[in-house]
Protein backbone atom coordinates (compact mmCIF):
# COMPACT_ATOMS: atom_id res chain seq x y z
CA UNK A 1 0.00 0.00 0.00
CA UNK A 2 1.27 3.47 -0.85
CA UNK A 3 1.55 5.77 2.14
CA UNK A 4 -0.35 9.03 2.08
CA UNK A 5 1.58 12.31 2.20
CA UNK A 6 1.47 14.44 5.36
CA UNK A 7 -1.90 16.01 6.13
CA UNK A 8 -2.05 19.81 6.38
CA UNK A 9 -4.86 20.28 8.86
CA UNK A 10 -5.37 22.16 12.11
CA UNK A 11 -6.08 19.88 15.07
CA UNK A 12 -9.81 19.85 15.95
CA UNK A 13 -10.25 21.69 19.26
CA UNK A 14 -12.63 19.28 21.04
CA UNK A 15 -12.33 15.85 19.48
CA UNK A 16 -9.34 14.78 21.56
CA UNK A 17 -11.32 15.37 24.76
CA UNK A 18 -14.33 13.44 23.39
CA UNK A 19 -12.15 10.48 22.41
CA UNK A 20 -10.26 10.38 25.69
CA UNK A 21 -13.56 10.45 27.62
CA UNK A 22 -14.82 7.67 25.37
CA UNK A 23 -11.67 5.64 25.99
CA UNK A 24 -12.10 5.98 29.75
CA UNK A 25 -15.77 4.94 29.55
CA UNK A 26 -14.77 2.08 27.22
CA UNK A 27 -12.36 0.81 29.87
CA UNK A 28 -15.01 1.02 32.62
CA UNK A 29 -17.56 -0.90 30.55
CA UNK A 30 -15.03 -3.45 29.34
CA UNK A 31 -14.18 -4.29 32.97
CA UNK A 32 -17.82 -3.95 34.14
CA UNK A 33 -17.72 -6.92 36.50
CA UNK A 34 -14.86 -5.32 38.41
CA UNK A 35 -15.80 -1.67 37.95
CA UNK A 36 -19.60 -1.74 38.32
CA UNK A 37 -20.91 -5.09 39.53
CA UNK A 38 -18.51 -5.67 42.42
CA UNK A 39 -19.03 -2.30 44.15
CA UNK A 40 -22.81 -2.51 43.63
CA UNK A 41 -22.93 -5.96 45.25
CA UNK A 42 -20.71 -4.79 48.12
CA UNK A 43 -22.95 -1.78 48.85
CA UNK A 44 -26.12 -3.87 48.58
CA UNK A 45 -24.65 -6.39 51.02
CA UNK A 46 -24.04 -3.56 53.50
CA UNK A 47 -27.68 -2.49 53.09
CA UNK A 48 -28.99 -6.01 53.56
CA UNK A 49 -26.72 -7.01 56.45
CA UNK A 50 -26.68 -3.75 58.40
CA UNK A 51 -30.02 -2.34 57.35
CA UNK A 52 -32.42 -5.19 56.96
CA UNK A 53 -30.87 -7.74 59.35
CA UNK A 54 -29.49 -5.61 62.18
CA UNK A 55 -31.68 -2.59 61.54
CA UNK A 56 -34.67 -3.99 63.44
CA UNK A 57 -32.69 -3.97 66.68
CA UNK A 58 -31.56 -0.35 66.23
CA UNK A 59 -33.87 2.53 67.09
CA UNK A 60 -34.87 5.20 64.58
CA UNK A 61 -32.35 7.96 63.75
CA UNK A 62 -33.69 11.46 63.11
CA UNK A 63 -37.12 9.94 62.52
CA UNK A 64 -35.98 7.35 59.98
CA UNK A 65 -35.77 3.59 60.29
CA UNK A 66 -32.14 2.50 60.41
CA UNK A 67 -32.32 0.60 57.10
CA UNK A 68 -33.51 3.83 55.43
CA UNK A 69 -31.07 6.09 57.27
CA UNK A 70 -27.93 4.31 56.04
CA UNK A 71 -28.91 4.21 52.34
CA UNK A 72 -27.59 7.69 51.28
CA UNK A 73 -24.29 7.20 53.11
CA UNK A 74 -23.72 3.80 51.53
CA UNK A 75 -24.49 5.17 48.07
CA UNK A 76 -22.11 8.09 48.70
CA UNK A 77 -19.43 5.71 49.94
CA UNK A 78 -19.69 3.43 46.89
CA UNK A 79 -19.65 6.39 44.50
CA UNK A 80 -16.70 8.07 46.20
CA UNK A 81 -14.62 4.91 46.19
CA UNK A 82 -15.50 4.20 42.55
CA UNK A 83 -14.47 7.67 41.35
CA UNK A 84 -11.27 7.50 43.38
CA UNK A 85 -10.19 3.98 42.49
CA UNK A 86 -11.10 4.37 38.81
CA UNK A 87 -8.95 7.44 38.29
CA UNK A 88 -6.06 6.41 40.49
CA UNK A 89 -5.77 3.06 38.70
CA UNK A 90 -6.27 4.32 35.14
CA UNK A 91 -3.67 7.10 35.58
CA UNK A 92 -1.17 4.89 37.38
CA UNK A 93 -1.52 2.16 34.75
CA UNK A 94 -1.13 4.63 31.89
CA UNK A 95 1.99 6.08 33.58
CA UNK A 96 3.42 2.72 34.47
CA UNK A 97 2.97 1.18 31.01
CA UNK A 98 3.81 4.56 29.41
CA UNK A 99 0.85 4.59 27.05
CA UNK A 100 0.05 7.94 28.66
CA UNK A 101 2.72 9.24 26.25
CA UNK A 102 0.28 8.77 23.37
CA UNK A 103 -2.09 11.19 25.11
CA UNK A 104 0.50 13.68 26.37
CA UNK A 105 2.04 14.01 22.91
CA UNK A 106 -1.35 14.48 21.22
CA UNK A 107 -2.65 17.97 20.38
CA UNK A 108 -4.86 18.26 23.47
CA UNK A 109 -4.67 21.07 26.03
CA UNK A 110 -3.80 19.94 29.55
CA UNK A 111 -7.28 20.72 30.82
CA UNK A 112 -8.87 18.49 28.16
CA UNK A 113 -6.73 15.57 29.31
CA UNK A 114 -7.65 16.31 32.92
CA UNK A 115 -11.35 16.61 32.10
CA UNK A 116 -11.28 13.41 30.02
CA UNK A 117 -10.05 11.43 33.02
CA UNK A 118 -12.53 13.12 35.36
CA UNK A 119 -15.39 12.19 33.01
CA UNK A 120 -14.33 8.53 33.02
CA UNK A 121 -14.35 8.36 36.83
CA UNK A 122 -17.62 10.30 37.04
CA UNK A 123 -19.28 7.96 34.55
CA UNK A 124 -18.35 4.90 36.60
CA UNK A 125 -19.36 6.57 39.86
CA UNK A 126 -22.71 7.80 38.49
CA UNK A 127 -23.54 4.41 36.97
CA UNK A 128 -22.99 2.80 40.35
CA UNK A 129 -25.07 5.52 42.03
CA UNK A 130 -27.95 5.05 39.60
CA UNK A 131 -27.96 1.24 39.92
CA UNK A 132 -27.73 1.42 43.73
CA UNK A 133 -30.49 4.03 43.96
CA UNK A 134 -32.72 1.97 41.66
CA UNK A 135 -32.15 -1.12 43.83
CA UNK A 136 -32.07 0.47 47.29
CA UNK A 137 -35.15 2.70 47.16
CA UNK A 138 -37.65 -0.12 46.50
CA UNK A 139 -35.87 -2.54 48.89
CA UNK A 140 -35.60 -0.18 51.87
CA UNK A 141 -38.35 2.32 51.10
CA UNK A 142 -35.90 5.23 51.33
CA UNK A 143 -37.20 8.48 49.77
CA UNK A 144 -35.53 10.84 47.32
CA UNK A 145 -36.91 14.07 48.74
CA UNK A 146 -34.59 16.64 47.14
CA UNK A 147 -33.35 15.18 43.85
CA UNK A 148 -31.70 18.42 42.70
CA UNK A 149 -29.68 18.72 45.92
CA UNK A 150 -28.87 15.00 45.77
CA UNK A 151 -27.65 15.37 42.19
CA UNK A 152 -25.54 18.41 43.05
CA UNK A 153 -24.05 16.61 46.05
CA UNK A 154 -23.11 13.48 44.07
CA UNK A 155 -21.68 15.54 41.19
CA UNK A 156 -19.43 17.37 43.63
CA UNK A 157 -18.60 14.09 45.34
CA UNK A 158 -17.62 12.29 42.11
CA UNK A 159 -15.58 15.26 40.92
CA UNK A 160 -13.75 15.62 44.24
CA UNK A 161 -12.92 11.93 44.57
CA UNK A 162 -12.12 11.65 40.84
CA UNK A 163 -9.61 14.48 41.24
CA UNK A 164 -8.19 12.84 44.38
CA UNK A 165 -7.81 9.61 42.39
CA UNK A 166 -5.89 11.47 39.67
CA UNK A 167 -3.60 13.06 42.27
CA UNK A 168 -2.84 9.71 43.91
CA UNK A 169 -2.44 8.04 40.48
CA UNK A 170 0.11 10.68 39.52
CA UNK A 171 2.10 10.47 42.76
CA UNK A 172 1.82 6.69 43.31
CA UNK A 173 5.00 4.65 42.98
CA UNK A 174 3.19 1.30 43.14
CA UNK A 175 -0.27 -0.27 43.22
CA UNK A 176 0.08 -0.51 47.00
CA UNK A 177 0.10 3.28 47.35
CA UNK A 178 -3.41 3.53 45.92
CA UNK A 179 -4.98 0.84 48.08
CA UNK A 180 -3.15 2.31 51.08
CA UNK A 181 -4.86 5.69 50.58
CA UNK A 182 -8.21 3.99 50.02
CA UNK A 183 -8.03 1.63 52.97
CA UNK A 184 -6.16 3.80 55.48
CA UNK A 185 -7.52 7.25 54.63
CA UNK A 186 -10.73 7.31 52.60
CA UNK A 187 -12.59 4.32 54.04
CA UNK A 188 -12.04 5.20 57.73
CA UNK A 189 -12.95 8.84 57.12
CA UNK A 190 -16.16 7.79 55.35
CA UNK A 191 -17.09 5.35 58.14
CA UNK A 192 -16.30 8.01 60.76
CA UNK A 193 -18.18 10.60 58.68
CA UNK A 194 -21.57 9.20 59.69
CA UNK A 195 -22.47 6.59 57.08
CA UNK A 196 -23.91 4.30 59.74
CA UNK A 197 -24.91 6.82 62.41
CA UNK A 198 -25.73 10.45 63.05
CA UNK A 199 -22.72 12.30 64.46
CA UNK A 200 -25.14 14.32 66.62
CA UNK A 201 -25.53 11.14 68.71
CA UNK A 202 -21.82 11.01 69.52
CA UNK A 203 -21.84 13.76 72.13
CA UNK A 204 -19.02 16.11 73.10
CA UNK A 205 -16.20 16.10 72.02
CA UNK A 206 -16.64 13.43 69.30
CA UNK A 207 -19.41 15.29 67.54
CA UNK A 208 -17.20 18.40 67.26
CA UNK A 209 -14.20 16.30 66.20
CA UNK A 210 -16.33 14.74 63.45
CA UNK A 211 -16.82 18.20 61.98
CA UNK A 212 -13.11 18.27 61.11
CA UNK A 213 -13.67 15.22 58.90
CA UNK A 214 -14.32 16.48 55.34
CA UNK A 215 -16.13 13.25 54.48
CA UNK A 216 -18.77 14.06 57.10
CA UNK A 217 -19.97 16.96 54.92
CA UNK A 218 -20.03 14.77 51.81
CA UNK A 219 -22.18 12.12 53.51
CA UNK A 220 -24.40 14.75 55.15
CA UNK A 221 -25.01 16.60 51.85
CA UNK A 222 -26.00 13.39 50.06
CA UNK A 223 -28.20 12.35 53.00
CA UNK A 224 -30.04 15.65 52.85
CA UNK A 225 -30.71 15.10 49.14
CA UNK A 226 -32.29 11.72 49.79
CA UNK A 227 -33.95 12.05 53.19
CA UNK A 228 -34.35 15.79 53.57
CA UNK A 229 -32.64 15.38 56.94
CA UNK A 230 -29.10 16.29 57.90
CA UNK A 231 -26.89 16.93 60.91
CA UNK A 232 -26.02 20.47 59.74
CA UNK A 233 -27.50 23.06 57.37
CA UNK A 234 -27.28 21.52 53.84
CA UNK A 235 -26.13 24.85 52.43
CA UNK A 236 -23.09 24.70 54.72
CA UNK A 237 -22.28 21.08 53.89
CA UNK A 238 -22.71 21.66 50.12
CA UNK A 239 -20.53 24.78 50.34
CA UNK A 240 -17.78 22.89 52.18
CA UNK A 241 -17.96 20.01 49.69
CA UNK A 242 -17.72 22.56 46.86
CA UNK A 243 -14.62 24.15 48.42
CA UNK A 244 -12.99 20.70 48.85
CA UNK A 245 -13.85 19.87 45.23
CA UNK A 246 -12.37 23.12 43.92
CA UNK A 247 -9.17 22.57 45.94
CA UNK A 248 -8.70 19.00 44.67
CA UNK A 249 -9.53 19.87 41.05
CA UNK A 250 -7.08 22.79 41.18
CA UNK A 251 -4.36 20.46 42.45
CA UNK A 252 -5.00 17.78 39.82
CA UNK A 253 -5.19 20.41 37.06
CA UNK A 254 -1.84 21.77 38.27
CA UNK A 255 -0.31 18.35 37.74
CA UNK A 256 -1.47 18.23 34.12
CA UNK A 257 -0.66 21.88 33.41
CA UNK A 258 2.90 21.63 34.67
CA UNK A 259 3.52 17.96 33.81
CA UNK A 260 4.76 17.50 37.37
CA UNK A 261 5.55 13.77 37.79
CA UNK A 262 3.84 13.04 34.47
CA UNK A 263 6.75 14.26 32.39
CA UNK A 264 10.33 14.01 33.71
Amino acid at each position, binding site marked *: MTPLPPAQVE*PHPWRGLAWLS*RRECHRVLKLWKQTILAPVIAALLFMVVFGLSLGNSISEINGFEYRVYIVPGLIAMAMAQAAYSNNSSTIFQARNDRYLD*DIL*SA*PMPAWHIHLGYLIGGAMRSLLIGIVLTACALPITGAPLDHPAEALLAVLLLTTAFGALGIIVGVYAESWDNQSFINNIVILPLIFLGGVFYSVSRLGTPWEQISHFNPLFYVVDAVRYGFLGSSDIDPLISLSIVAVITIALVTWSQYLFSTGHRLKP
Partner: protein
Amino acid sequence: MNTTPAALDVKGLTKRYGDGTLALDDLDLEVPNGSFFGLLGPNGAGKTTLIGAVCNLVRPTSGDISIFGNPGGSMMARRMIGIAEQEPNLDKFLTVYETLLYHGGYYGMDGDEAGERAEQMIDAFDLRAKRNVEAPKLSGGMRRRLLLARALLHRPNLVILDEPTAGVDLELRHELWSYIRVLHEQGTTILLTTHYLEEAEALCDEIALISGGQIVARDTAAGLKYTHGVETLEEVYLKTVAGGKIALAEEAARA
Protein backbone atom coordinates in the same frame (compact mmCIF):
# COMPACT_ATOMS: atom_id res chain seq x y z
CA MET B 1 17.37 31.52 -0.30
CA ASN B 2 15.27 28.77 1.28
CA THR B 3 12.65 30.32 3.58
CA THR B 4 10.88 27.04 4.45
CA PRO B 5 11.09 26.59 8.22
CA ALA B 6 13.11 23.62 9.41
CA ALA B 7 11.15 20.53 10.35
CA LEU B 8 12.87 20.66 13.73
CA ASP B 9 14.88 23.55 15.09
CA VAL B 10 16.39 23.12 18.55
CA LYS B 11 18.37 25.93 20.14
CA GLY B 12 20.29 25.82 23.42
CA LEU B 13 18.29 22.87 24.73
CA THR B 14 19.31 21.80 28.20
CA LYS B 15 17.72 19.11 30.33
CA ARG B 16 18.87 18.39 33.84
CA TYR B 17 16.85 15.69 35.62
CA GLY B 18 15.84 15.90 39.26
CA ASP B 19 18.71 13.62 40.32
CA GLY B 20 21.20 16.07 38.79
CA THR B 21 21.90 14.11 35.59
CA LEU B 22 22.63 16.45 32.71
CA ALA B 23 21.01 14.69 29.73
CA LEU B 24 21.13 17.57 27.23
CA ASP B 25 23.79 20.27 27.42
CA ASP B 26 22.95 23.43 25.48
CA LEU B 27 22.18 21.34 22.39
CA ASP B 28 21.58 22.91 18.97
CA LEU B 29 20.11 20.89 16.10
CA GLU B 30 18.34 21.72 12.88
CA VAL B 31 16.61 19.03 10.85
CA PRO B 32 15.71 20.36 7.38
CA ASN B 33 12.18 19.97 6.06
CA GLY B 34 11.90 16.84 3.91
CA SER B 35 15.13 15.23 5.08
CA PHE B 36 15.80 11.70 6.28
CA PHE B 37 17.91 12.50 9.31
CA GLY B 38 19.82 10.06 11.47
CA LEU B 39 20.70 10.65 15.11
CA LEU B 40 23.34 8.26 16.40
CA GLY B 41 24.87 7.90 19.81
CA PRO B 42 25.49 5.45 22.61
CA ASN B 43 22.98 4.65 25.34
CA GLY B 44 22.65 7.60 27.70
CA ALA B 45 23.88 10.12 25.12
CA GLY B 46 20.60 12.06 25.26
CA LYS B 47 18.76 10.78 22.17
CA THR B 48 15.59 9.70 23.95
CA THR B 49 15.57 12.83 26.14
CA LEU B 50 15.86 15.00 23.04
CA ILE B 51 13.01 13.15 21.36
CA GLY B 52 10.93 13.36 24.54
CA ALA B 53 11.46 17.12 24.74
CA VAL B 54 10.45 17.54 21.09
CA CYS B 55 7.30 15.43 21.61
CA ASN B 56 6.09 17.15 24.81
CA LEU B 57 7.06 14.17 26.96
CA VAL B 58 10.03 15.72 28.75
CA ARG B 59 10.15 19.19 30.33
CA PRO B 60 13.27 21.00 29.10
CA THR B 61 15.25 22.94 31.69
CA SER B 62 15.96 25.67 29.13
CA GLY B 63 16.15 26.25 25.39
CA ASP B 64 13.79 26.56 22.45
CA ILE B 65 12.17 24.02 20.18
CA SER B 66 10.39 24.80 16.94
CA ILE B 67 8.49 22.37 14.69
CA PHE B 68 7.98 23.70 11.15
CA GLY B 69 8.06 27.18 12.67
CA ASN B 70 5.54 26.33 15.41
CA PRO B 71 6.65 26.57 19.04
CA GLY B 72 7.42 23.18 20.58
CA GLY B 73 4.52 21.90 22.67
CA SER B 74 1.94 23.99 20.78
CA MET B 75 -1.12 22.18 19.44
CA MET B 76 0.02 22.60 15.83
CA ALA B 77 3.53 21.36 16.61
CA ARG B 78 2.14 18.29 18.34
CA ARG B 79 -0.25 17.64 15.45
CA MET B 80 2.69 17.61 13.02
CA ILE B 81 4.74 14.97 14.87
CA GLY B 82 4.31 11.22 14.88
CA ILE B 83 6.46 9.24 17.27
CA ALA B 84 7.22 5.54 17.55
CA GLU B 85 8.98 5.16 20.87
CA GLN B 86 11.70 2.67 21.62
CA GLU B 87 9.61 0.64 24.10
CA PRO B 88 6.22 -0.64 22.93
CA ASN B 89 3.90 1.57 24.98
CA LEU B 90 0.51 0.32 23.86
CA ASP B 91 -2.79 0.70 25.70
CA LYS B 92 -3.42 -2.73 27.22
CA PHE B 93 -7.21 -2.33 27.17
CA LEU B 94 -7.48 -1.72 23.42
CA THR B 95 -7.36 -4.01 20.41
CA VAL B 96 -5.18 -3.26 17.40
CA TYR B 97 -8.08 -1.53 15.64
CA GLU B 98 -9.09 0.41 18.75
CA THR B 99 -5.50 1.50 19.41
CA LEU B 100 -5.39 3.12 15.98
CA LEU B 101 -8.95 4.45 16.14
CA TYR B 102 -8.44 6.17 19.50
CA HIS B 103 -5.07 7.54 18.46
CA GLY B 104 -6.77 9.16 15.45
CA GLY B 105 -9.35 10.61 17.83
CA TYR B 106 -6.73 12.04 20.16
CA TYR B 107 -5.23 13.76 17.12
CA GLY B 108 -8.55 15.35 16.18
CA MET B 109 -10.01 12.97 13.59
CA ASP B 110 -13.71 12.17 13.55
CA GLY B 111 -14.88 8.57 13.90
CA ASP B 112 -15.30 7.84 10.19
CA GLU B 113 -11.94 9.29 9.23
CA ALA B 114 -10.09 7.61 12.11
CA GLY B 115 -11.80 4.27 11.40
CA GLU B 116 -11.00 4.40 7.70
CA ARG B 117 -7.40 5.39 8.37
CA ALA B 118 -7.07 2.65 11.01
CA GLU B 119 -8.16 0.03 8.47
CA GLN B 120 -5.64 1.41 5.94
CA MET B 121 -2.82 1.15 8.46
CA ILE B 122 -3.89 -2.36 9.47
CA ASP B 123 -3.51 -3.42 5.83
CA ALA B 124 -0.31 -1.44 5.29
CA PHE B 125 1.39 -3.07 8.28
CA ASP B 126 -0.05 -6.54 7.73
CA LEU B 127 -2.04 -6.53 10.97
CA ARG B 128 -5.36 -7.73 9.50
CA ALA B 129 -5.25 -11.14 11.22
CA LYS B 130 -4.69 -9.41 14.57
CA ARG B 131 -7.23 -6.61 14.09
CA ASN B 132 -9.32 -7.55 17.12
CA VAL B 133 -6.49 -8.74 19.35
CA GLU B 134 -5.49 -6.69 22.41
CA ALA B 135 -1.97 -5.28 22.49
CA PRO B 136 -0.62 -7.46 25.35
CA LYS B 137 -1.47 -10.58 23.33
CA LEU B 138 0.61 -9.52 20.31
CA SER B 139 4.09 -10.81 19.53
CA GLY B 140 7.05 -8.43 19.73
CA GLY B 141 7.14 -7.96 15.95
CA MET B 142 3.40 -7.25 15.80
CA ARG B 143 3.68 -4.71 18.59
CA ARG B 144 6.45 -2.98 16.67
CA ARG B 145 4.25 -2.87 13.55
CA LEU B 146 1.39 -1.43 15.59
CA LEU B 147 3.64 1.23 17.12
CA LEU B 148 4.69 2.38 13.66
CA ALA B 149 1.14 2.24 12.33
CA ARG B 150 0.03 4.39 15.27
CA ALA B 151 2.83 6.90 14.72
CA LEU B 152 1.88 7.34 11.08
CA LEU B 153 -1.90 7.18 11.41
CA HIS B 154 -2.55 10.92 11.64
CA ARG B 155 -0.28 11.61 8.66
CA PRO B 156 2.37 13.61 10.53
CA ASN B 157 4.83 15.89 8.77
CA LEU B 158 7.71 14.85 11.02
CA VAL B 159 8.01 11.18 11.93
CA ILE B 160 10.34 10.33 14.81
CA LEU B 161 11.45 6.73 14.96
CA ASP B 162 13.36 5.84 18.12
CA GLU B 163 15.20 2.62 17.33
CA PRO B 164 12.25 1.21 15.40
CA THR B 165 14.02 -1.94 14.26
CA ALA B 166 15.57 -2.99 17.58
CA GLY B 167 14.83 -6.68 18.02
CA VAL B 168 12.98 -6.88 14.70
CA ASP B 169 13.61 -9.72 12.23
CA LEU B 170 15.23 -9.01 8.87
CA GLU B 171 12.06 -9.45 6.84
CA LEU B 172 10.06 -6.97 8.90
CA ARG B 173 12.96 -4.54 8.93
CA HIS B 174 13.01 -4.48 5.14
CA GLU B 175 9.23 -4.10 4.96
CA LEU B 176 9.30 -1.19 7.39
CA TRP B 177 12.09 0.59 5.59
CA SER B 178 10.48 0.26 2.19
CA TYR B 179 7.32 1.84 3.61
CA ILE B 180 9.25 4.61 5.36
CA ARG B 181 11.27 5.32 2.20
CA VAL B 182 8.10 5.90 0.17
CA LEU B 183 6.72 8.04 2.98
CA HIS B 184 9.89 10.13 2.87
CA GLU B 185 9.73 10.45 -0.92
CA GLN B 186 6.24 11.91 -0.52
CA GLY B 187 7.54 14.74 1.64
CA THR B 188 7.51 13.44 5.21
CA THR B 189 10.56 14.37 7.27
CA ILE B 190 12.04 11.39 9.10
CA LEU B 191 14.16 11.59 12.24
CA LEU B 192 15.67 8.20 12.99
CA THR B 193 17.69 6.99 15.93
CA THR B 194 19.30 3.61 15.56
CA HIS B 195 22.24 1.54 16.73
CA TYR B 196 22.51 -0.08 13.28
CA LEU B 197 25.08 2.16 11.62
CA GLU B 198 24.72 0.50 8.21
CA GLU B 199 20.99 1.21 8.39
CA ALA B 200 21.63 4.90 9.08
CA GLU B 201 24.19 5.08 6.28
CA ALA B 202 21.85 3.47 3.77
CA LEU B 203 18.79 5.52 4.65
CA CYS B 204 19.77 8.94 5.94
CA ASP B 205 20.61 12.08 3.94
CA GLU B 206 22.38 13.47 6.97
CA ILE B 207 23.63 12.08 10.24
CA ALA B 208 24.30 13.76 13.58
CA LEU B 209 26.32 12.10 16.31
CA ILE B 210 25.30 12.88 19.86
CA SER B 211 27.39 12.32 22.96
CA GLY B 212 27.14 13.74 26.47
CA GLY B 213 24.01 15.66 25.54
CA GLN B 214 25.68 17.55 22.69
CA ILE B 215 25.93 17.14 18.93
CA VAL B 216 29.59 16.28 18.32
CA ALA B 217 29.52 15.79 14.55
CA ARG B 218 27.08 16.28 11.72
CA ASP B 219 27.26 15.71 7.97
CA THR B 220 26.33 13.23 5.28
CA ALA B 221 27.73 9.73 5.83
CA ALA B 222 30.30 10.39 3.09
CA GLY B 223 31.15 13.79 4.55
CA LEU B 224 31.69 12.35 8.03
CA LYS B 225 33.99 9.64 6.67
CA TYR B 226 35.96 12.18 4.62
CA THR B 227 36.31 14.64 7.49
CA HIS B 228 37.62 11.98 9.84
CA GLY B 229 39.75 10.27 7.19
CA VAL B 230 38.22 6.85 7.66
CA GLU B 231 36.54 4.20 5.53
CA THR B 232 33.39 3.41 7.49
CA LEU B 233 30.77 5.13 9.58
CA GLU B 234 31.62 2.76 12.41
CA GLU B 235 35.11 4.24 12.52
CA VAL B 236 33.66 7.75 12.60
CA TYR B 237 31.44 6.66 15.48
CA LEU B 238 34.34 5.17 17.41
CA LYS B 239 36.49 8.25 16.83
CA THR B 240 33.88 10.81 17.81
CA VAL B 241 31.20 9.42 20.08
CA ALA B 242 33.10 6.59 21.72
CA GLY B 243 36.55 8.11 21.15
CA GLY B 244 37.43 8.73 24.76
CA LYS B 245 36.37 5.31 25.96
CA ILE B 246 38.11 3.48 23.11
CA ALA B 247 41.36 5.38 23.68
CA LEU B 248 41.28 4.58 27.38
CA ALA B 249 40.57 0.91 26.66
CA GLU B 250 43.48 0.75 24.20
CA GLU B 251 45.79 2.45 26.68
CA ALA B 252 44.76 -0.02 29.38
CA ALA B 253 45.34 -2.94 27.01
CA ARG B 254 48.84 -1.70 26.14
CA ALA B 255 49.70 -1.27 29.83
